[in-house]
């Protein structure tokens, strides 16, 4: 990409010889077509080019972020950074630059999606709801990432992704669904709309049930939220360093049916094949047969814990946030939703969680609510839609030994509390989940 090449060439001339330097650029084209009340009401498109400079000298480190327009010239940019470096304290956790041998060249010229393609997918989704009120979005992303450092690393990659997400509402109910893919052509908006519409229709006129402990089937979005909490707060090595992680490596902490793998090397995986340090990522067992095998590391956490760097430095968050897994797959099982339902005497189906917050990081007790499709299951059948419930439940315990009865036979990209495109998951059938409040509080 020309703007990167030109900027890099110019900056390289201004780096003092005794400075370790890392330069990155994220060039993005992102667009989102948003609909509400069954019409497109907001339609946005953005092009950005952000430069990230980190320099390290005499035990001190400084980072600067500017977009390409804010960089008056590379000489001035470097001068400002060097001046700030003088005022900085010692950086005792500096873990160095990524090695030249980790270079990965994945940049490709890729055509961006036009707004008509997104609008047509919205149309396909909305029509599945007939007269129901539809809301949601179709989004597309094209990101190019470049990393160069004074070790000689010169990595690049291109990532594209597309999502359709929406709900249908009636006067008394709502149903939602979601799809994500590397290529917009792989999104089936009609099928997504069908699923959301069925949930909305089926969950009309819900009844209130008493809170308590219930056997549950969790839909894709609900499962994704549990795992994203474990990923960000538990498997993140920074949480381990801070004494906040509940994850115990190499112990039988989860049910043996839980197998979580990170698959950045898979061509169908959304996201870059390099991490924010420019190093190539690789497929990894994260939880194997219920046993956690690794934390997500950055250069710094890897050094501090003296563990292997798993290349999980994340884009767009402060470096000190730690490592985040972004290509996670919960291995699917062989149980259909029908078989899950028929095996339940008294339980609940929940499509999606809402507004989940951690009450206690070490036990991962989280509170949140259900929405967009919840049902009571009695004697092997869905008997009625149910209203709002509040849960207060340890996410660790929810996947603990003996609590996972079965794993669904179909995995897909699912949305989560912390965003989309990070997790591909099946549905789960859990023995017990703790609901602590109903509609009346």
């Amino acid at each position, binding site marked *: 990409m020309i703007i990167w090449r030109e900027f890099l060439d110019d900056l390289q001339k201004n780096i003092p010889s005794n400075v370790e330097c890392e330069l990155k650029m994220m060039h993005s084209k992102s667009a989102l077509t948003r609909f509400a009340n069954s*019409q497109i009401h*907001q339609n946005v498109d953005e092009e950005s080019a952000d430069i990230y400079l980190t320099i390290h000298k005499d035990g001190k480190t400084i980072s600067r972020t500017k977009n390409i327009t804010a960089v008056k010239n590379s000489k001035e940019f470097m001068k400002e950074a060097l001046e700030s470096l003088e005022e*900085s304290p010692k950086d005792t956790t500096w873990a160095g630059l990524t090695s030249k041998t980790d270079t990965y060249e994945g940049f490709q010229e890729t055509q961006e999606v036009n707004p008509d393609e997104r*609008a047509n997918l919205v149309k396909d989704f909305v029509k599945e709801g007939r007269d129901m009120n539809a809301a949601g979005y179709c*989004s597309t992303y094209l990101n190019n990432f470049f990393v160069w450092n004074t070790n000689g690393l010169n990595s690049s990659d291109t990532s594209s992704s597309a999502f359709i997400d929406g709900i249908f509402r009636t006067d008394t109910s709502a149903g939602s669904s979601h799809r994500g893919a590397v290529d917009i052509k792989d999104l089936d908006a009609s099928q997504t709309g069908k699923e959301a519409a069925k949930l909305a229709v089926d969950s009309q006129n819900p009844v209130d049930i008493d809170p308590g402990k219930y056997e549950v089937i969790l839909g894709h979005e609900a499962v994704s939220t549990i795992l994203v909490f474990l990923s960000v707060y538990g498997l993140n090595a920074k949480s381990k360093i801070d*004494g906040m992680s509940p994850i115990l490596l190499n112990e039988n902490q989860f049910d043996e049916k839980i197998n979580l793998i990170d698959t950045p090397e898979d061509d169908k995986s959304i996201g870059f094949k390099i991490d924010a340090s420019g190093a190539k990522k690789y497929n990894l067992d994260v939880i194997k047969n219920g046993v956690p095998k690794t934390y997500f590391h950055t250069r710094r956490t890897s050094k501090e814990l003296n563990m292997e760097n798993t290349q999980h430095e994340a884009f767009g968050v402060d470096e000190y946030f730690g490592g985040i897994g972004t290509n996670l797959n919960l291995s699917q099982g062989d149980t259909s939703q029908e078989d899950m339902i028929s095996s339940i005497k008294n339980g609940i189906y929940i499509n999606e969680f809402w507004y989940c917050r951690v009450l206690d990081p070490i036990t991962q007790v989280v509170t949140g609510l259900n*929405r967009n499709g919840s049902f009571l299951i009695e004697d092997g059948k869905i008997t009625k839609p149910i209203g709002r419930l509040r849960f207060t*439940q340890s996410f660790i315990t929810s996947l603990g030994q003996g609590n996972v009865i079965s794993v669904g036979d179909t995995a897909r990209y699912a949305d989560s509390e912390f965003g989309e495109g990070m997790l591909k998951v099946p549905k789960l059938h859990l023995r017990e989940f703790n609901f*602590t409040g109903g509609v009346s509080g």
Partner: protein
Amino acid sequence: MFDLLKIAIDSATSSGAKYSDARILISKSRSIAAKNGEVENFNESEKIGLGIRALVGSSWGFYSTYDLSTESLILSGKKAFDIAKASAVVSGNETPFADVPVVKDEYTTPHDENPFKVSTTEQIDLLVNSTEQMKKLGSSRSSGRLDFWDTEKWFCSSQGHEIFQNIIESGGGISSLSVGDGETQIRSYPQSFGEYRTGGWEVIKSFEFENHTQRLAEESQRLLVAPQCPEGSMDLILEGSQLALQIHESVGHAIELDRILGWEAAYAGTSHLELGNLNKHKYGSELMNIVADATLPGALATFKYDDEGTPAQRVDIVKEGIWTGVLSGRDSAAIAGVKPGGMVRADGFSRLPMVRMTNVGLLPGESSLEEIIESTENGIYMETNRSWSIDDLRLNFQFGCEAGWVVKNGKIIDMVKNPTYTGITPEFWGNMDMLANEDEWVFWGTPNCGKGQPSQIGHTGHPASPARFKNTRIGVRG
């Protein structure tokens, strides 16, 4: 800058947009984080760019770019129009747009010391010393952060607005985390995630971190051995910053007109409020008087014009317990038949402006916190938010706080850990029977309000003083 904006706007309107406006922003930020006496993160950022929107039929088209060349500006206006036009595939009724006075004006946040001109060494030292002190006092992990934003914003519209604003915001906080046997406890100051206001370095100096390190370190350790918060229905006394978040979640979001109109239904949710019940719905007790006021000097959401060129203003939201107002923009106000409230802002140049809380606060009452405690027979006093969760209608909520104190017969007798409370919005506010006075009224700020797609982070203010709520369900645990 105004000339550049006009190039883009002319391009949008000549393409066929019935209205267009645009902003150029120069956004600078500085972020410093320290842990256990060492700097953990120090980053400065600067971004410059344009965001233009065009109204075509029933939809907004929005385009943003970092490229401010004439060629790019012309293309940006055309793109905003083309994007809006593409919405015709799934269109609805034409979106109305309320008129506001066309002004040419400028405004700068009043401040004593621009935080970007203060030595970074002084700022770093403040955090390093505070966190080092707490670590020495036994904190397992002491942390602190400072954030500063300096935003220069030029706004033009196809109706003739020319507004320049320079908004300066400063904030931060410190916390002490103690790790015990299978649990963690934390105490934060001035509030969890820090306290943020408009203004300069003087905002940070007013916090006097050095006077709070010992208390935070001691309380976080004391909580590890404190008894669990009791369970049951009893009186709840909320400290101001927790009440500020309660206002944010159960009032501020519920009164956003875009939610009420269903525009946020898929993501942020809707509201339990229906426009037909405006000026009738009983939101809370007669002590409840909420205003949205973007003119409060020093509060976090204070400015002179919003991102649609509407003047900042004070709007009554709840008067003596009755719901009377909403947070609106020019399009949503026109649909709802109310006056535009000047409450539309965007998170940077690259985001579409949307309805945002200004300083949505609870007007003070007449009691003191001391009087509230003295008049409480059986209750819990809770301080500083630790977790928050509320449903998508903004009705059913559960909050957790960092620390609680048992109040018996008018006296604080015991510290308790893991305090939580839960409730339903109108019942909860209906049970507010005592409210602290102006002496304890603080302009609390929330710098991390997420809303919209693509996601936007908003800065909102919530003036509040402590208050008491009768018969609240307390002590929910998993």
